[in-house]
């Protein structure tokens, strides 16, 4: 269709063309078009089919308040066509259509069957007998839900997030919102202004009506927007829908990105000192038969189509309205070339007589006290029947557009969500906030104001109130502004009629859920008398629009029928998100922040297969052989190097440091001797193993300790928690990233170390469990003799910046002794051969140190220390029925290795395999398992069940541990 000639209110740019594909149809649009306006310009009238009855649906509000115009765009379902800019090359599909185009839907017979599906149909009909459930489920699933998401669909785009602190947050960029932002900013405050549309201006933005002599409203809107734009302390977010509002002034919203933005959508969380809600009004739908037939639309929709996008809504329109905006739109559209069949107005009198005179001047029939009762036409409107409100007279007029609206309804979601309460206001016919959460203010049309000056002044006033919340001395300004406000017109009297004289069978109160007035009547007939319950039973207002369409009409209708015990209309609740949001937007960008050890790059270069373990990247192995055989054998026969930098490392010092250690470690930490390492464990209150590590004494009241990799993040928190009542004097420093760790292990380890240091590292001078500090080529090293992998080994703690140098030196020096890197997989098998546990592999939430055979670590004679877990350790020491850690081998040779985690069974589950691997040292599979205590005797048979084993159990037997070098000669030599 042909667009109008250039208007000053246009948001499209002539000359900048684009095209989108609607199914098979290529639609040409202009830059500035939304998907909805681009399709409308190409004569698309049916945008989709409704949820239950497959009725045709089209443009209605142009602000995305219902699912009528939700479409699939480039594979993304439920995109709101009215709010989404058209982008060249977009592929758009109508939803809920069974057939090629929404014009011909194979399920449209559902509409004829609507009589068979009363309110609560699914609840009542399909629950008995139960054998029909599978069939019912299949068919309901097929028919239910809006939009199709392909299971292998991959969401593209960049989803950002932003957490903003501000003094004042203004919701709504209309005249009141802009004035509030300006007056708060004028007080020197930081202001965030949120606007759903791509531009500021709201209610003024498209209207040519006079604001003051020679200045139309749209021009005033642009002036205000310009002032806002020039105010550096106002940060404006356009294309931004508010989705949630919470206490402590937290506002959530999301912003759709423009071409120039680096994000597709951005989630916003705004914490403000004060909030101004200037969300204005949406139109309250007028209910009549076929009130959602394509061609029926609200005043703003028809008016903005023409004024913003240059599209006349049709050729001939009938108006059935209840607000002066309708009269104004009819006059303007008539001047722009639309043939107006008539303007029916619900109001008998209280309309603006000047506007009525303007209609008369244009020979447009004006019918006060009349209302539309039926739209005709099977796919789109071709006629409308009007009736006098008292149902005495009727007229049928042919037209292709019905502009229908019962009145206005305020957008109060931001006030209700954090706990504001609404009451019905008889003058405006609105549900108005009776209580408003602290530091929140309302302004503008939402209060029922219509006069442009009154709206702006209420904005200025709210901005000042917000400034007062933020501690600005504005008492006098407030008094002045309140005085101004009092001289201006107050709230307009609003209409209350919901529906003309209709039967209600095809009168839709909720478009999203296909809910008719008849359904509401059925619910009331069944005894549901409160709107909130009727909403649940009929599902009216539970769709994507969150009550935008039915929210006002439902309680009004219920109150009108007199079915409710309470004659005051009771509004239903709304919940966040107030606007449908992509899950991708909520998820935001994926900040996968992992840590790299100082050796990372060189490990990767050496062919390390890196794996993500907790927050760390670690080398699992250095060849494609998943068994890591060469690495293992090299540690047993020569010497290996492991990067153990992920180990948690801490300094704890101060006069009460020892007391803190005694509190959290189960051993007697007063026995930590100089030059020795002390291995111990931390338990929780239940005596369950939380962490293990070593402690060394660096100096008087000064200790160095390690924590396991996965636990390092919580160690300080843990120690401080368990000493929180004591007021002890000690401090902790997390050195995890400051130090790297090299574990050099194998029979040749000493030969390598001797060559790089002048220190005496002989077995006599530096024995097993010893701690030494020395230099390797002037680089200080903290060295410990430990035996996690069961060979002679030195754990070298080195400042991170020296790690690469020392590592390289060891590798070069160790060449003649067969030194090689080894990774986590090799370490895992080496330590298992020694029966050493890894927390989380061999222990779980309920595993005590007794269960693991580590009870010897517990020193019971320090009750004054109040050791965490000590009491439970006493209680569980001989407790029956616990899972105990055992070693096992397979009963028959040649049996394969069972999978980690496989359950152990007889007639029931008796435990599970923790870790099992093939041992190259023993030349057979070995493993560790947690088993019921009556199964832990040596020689007991364990039957292992594996996923998919089809009843064929693997058979193992309990053996003693360690498997390798039980006397520990290798690590002590």
């Amino acid at each position: 269709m042909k667009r109008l000639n250039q208007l000053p209110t246009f948001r499209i740019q002539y000359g900048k063309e684009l095209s989108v594909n609607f199914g098979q149809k290529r639609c040409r649009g202009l830059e500035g078009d939304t998907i909805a306006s681009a399709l409308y310009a190409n004569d698309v009238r049916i945008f989709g089919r409704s949820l239950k009855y497959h009725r045709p649906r089209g443009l209605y509000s142009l602000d995305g308040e219902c699912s009528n115009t939700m479409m699939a765009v480039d594979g993304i379902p439920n995109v709101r066509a009215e709010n989404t800019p058209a982008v060249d090359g977009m592929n758009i599909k109508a939803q809920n259509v069974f057939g090629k185009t929404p014009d011909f839907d194979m399920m449209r017979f559902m509409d004829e069957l609507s009589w068979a599906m009363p309110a609560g149909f699914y609840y009542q009909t399909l629950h008995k007998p139960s054998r029909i459930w599978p069939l019912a489920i299949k068919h309901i699933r097929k028919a239910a839900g809006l939009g199709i998401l392909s299971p292998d669909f991959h969401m593209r785009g960049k989803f950002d997030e932003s957490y903003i602190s501000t003094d004042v947050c203004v919701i709504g960029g209309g005249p009141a919102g802009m004035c509030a932002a300006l007056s708060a900013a004028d007080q020197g405050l930081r202001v965030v202004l949120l606007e759903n549309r791509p531009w500021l201006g709201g209610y003024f933005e498209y209207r040519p009506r006079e604001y003051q002599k020679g200045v139309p409203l749209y021009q005033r809107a642009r002036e205000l927007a310009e002032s806002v734009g020039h105010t550096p302390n106002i940060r404006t977010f356009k294309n931004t829908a508010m989705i949630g509002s919470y206490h402590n002034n937290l506002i959530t919203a999301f912003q759709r990105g423009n071409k120039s933005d680096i994000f597709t959508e951005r989630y916003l969380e705004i914490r403000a000192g004060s909030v101004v809600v200037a969300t204005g009004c949406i139109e309250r739908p007028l209910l009549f038969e076929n009130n959602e037939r394509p061609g029926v639309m609200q005043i703003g929709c028809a008016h903005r189509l023409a004024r913003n996008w240059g599209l006349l809504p049709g050729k001939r329109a009938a108006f059935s309205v209840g607000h002066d905006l309708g009269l104004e739109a009819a006059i303007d559209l008539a001047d722009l070339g639309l043939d107006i069949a008539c303007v029916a107005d619900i109001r008998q009198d209280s309309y603006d007589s000047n506007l009525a005179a303007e209609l008369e001047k244009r020979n447009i029939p004006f019918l006060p006290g009349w209302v539309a009762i039926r739209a005709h036409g099977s796919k789109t409107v071709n006629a409308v029947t009007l009736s006098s409100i008292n149902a005495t007279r009727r007229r049928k007029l042919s037209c292709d557009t019905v502009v229908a609206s019962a009145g206005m309804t305020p957008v109060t979601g931001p006030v209700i969500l954090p706990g504001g309460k609404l009451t019905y206001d008889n003058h405006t016919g609105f549900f108005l906030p009776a209580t408003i959460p602290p530091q929140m203010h309302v302004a503008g049309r939402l209060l029922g104001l219509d006069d442009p000056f009154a709206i702006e002044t209420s904005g200025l006033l709210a901005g000042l109130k917000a400034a007062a919340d933020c501690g600005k001395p504005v008492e006098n300004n407030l008094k002045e502004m309140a005085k101004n406000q009092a001289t201006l017109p107050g709230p307009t009297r609003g209409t209350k009629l919901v529906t003309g004289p209709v039967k209600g069978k095809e009168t839709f109160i909720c478009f999203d859920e296909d809910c008719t007035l008849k359904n509401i009547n059925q619910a009331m007939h069944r005894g549901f008398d409160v709107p909130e319950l009727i909403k649940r039973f009929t599902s009216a207002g539970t769709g994507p629009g969150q009550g935008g369409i039915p929210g006002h009409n439902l309680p009004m209708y219920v109150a009108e029928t007199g079915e409710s015990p309470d004659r005051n209309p009771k509004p239903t609740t709304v919940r966040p998100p107030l606007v449908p949001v992509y899950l991708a937007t909520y998820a935001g960008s994926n900040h996968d922040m992992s840590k790299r050890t100082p050796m990372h790059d060189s490990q990767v270069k050496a062919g390390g297969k890196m794996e993500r373990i907790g927050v760390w990247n670690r080398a699992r192995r250095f060849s494609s052989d998943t068994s890591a055989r060469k690495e293992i054998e090299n540690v047993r026969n020569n010497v290996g190097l492991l990067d153990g930098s992920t180990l948690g490392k801490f300094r704890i010092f101060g006069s009460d440091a020892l007391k803190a250690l005694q509190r959290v470690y189960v051993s007697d930490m007063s026995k930590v001797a100089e030059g020795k390492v002390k291995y111990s464990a931390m338990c929780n209150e239940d005596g369950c193993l939380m962490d293990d590590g070593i402690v060394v004494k660096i100096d008087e009241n000064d200790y160095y300790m390690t924590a396991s990799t996965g636990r390092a993040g919580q160690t300080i928190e843990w120690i401080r928690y368990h000493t929180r009542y004591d007021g002890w004097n000690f401090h902790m420093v997390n050195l995890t990233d400051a130090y790297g760790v090299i574990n050099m292990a194998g029979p040749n380890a000493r030969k390598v170390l001797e060559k790089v240091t002048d220190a005496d590292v002989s077995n006599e001078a530096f024995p097993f469990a010893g701690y030494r500090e020395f230099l390797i080529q002037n680089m200080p090293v903290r060295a410990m003799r430990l035996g996690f992998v069961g060979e002679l080994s030195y754990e070298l703690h080195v400042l991170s910046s020296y790690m690469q140098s020392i590592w390289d030196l060891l590798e070069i020096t160790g060449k003649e002794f067969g030194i090689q890197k080894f990774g986590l997989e090799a370490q895992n098998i080496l330590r298992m051969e020694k029966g050493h546990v890894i927390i989380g592999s061999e222990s779980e939430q309920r595993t005590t140190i007794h269960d693991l055979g580590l009870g010897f670590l517990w020193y019971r004679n320090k009750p004054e220390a109040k050791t965490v877990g000590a009491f439970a350790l006493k209680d569980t020491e001989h407790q029956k029925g616990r899972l105990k850690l055992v070693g096992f081998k397979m009963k028959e040779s040649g049996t394969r290795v069972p999978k980690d985690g496989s359950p152990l069974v007889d007639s029931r589950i008796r435990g599970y395999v923790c870790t099992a691997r093939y041992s190259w040292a023993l030349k057979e599979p070995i493993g560790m398992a947690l088993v019921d205590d009556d199964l832990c005797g040596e020689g007991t048979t364990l039957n292992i069940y594996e996923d998919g084993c089809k009843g064929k159990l693997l058979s193992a037997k309990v053996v003693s541990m360690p498997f390798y070098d039980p006397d520990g000669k290798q690590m002590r030599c």
Partner: protein
Amino acid sequence: MAFTITCPVCGIRRGYEFRFGGEDKGPMPPEESLASETWCEYVHMNNCIAGIQKEWWFHRDGCGSWFTIYRDTTTNQQVENR
């Protein structure tokens, strides 16, 4: 999400930054002559007050201190000390 906590060191911060440390139950009773029931009561049982409760919080993404606040569990808002 909307919850804020006033840390004695860092001031008012978003609730995200903190870890909950349970109701304030006072220090662990002495280990000697402690009955299993008393131990269990102390470690595992909570008062679960619907109203204002004193509780421990840890400023995990901040100064790293443990401290107590009063919180109204029915509104999930920090309140002034009674």
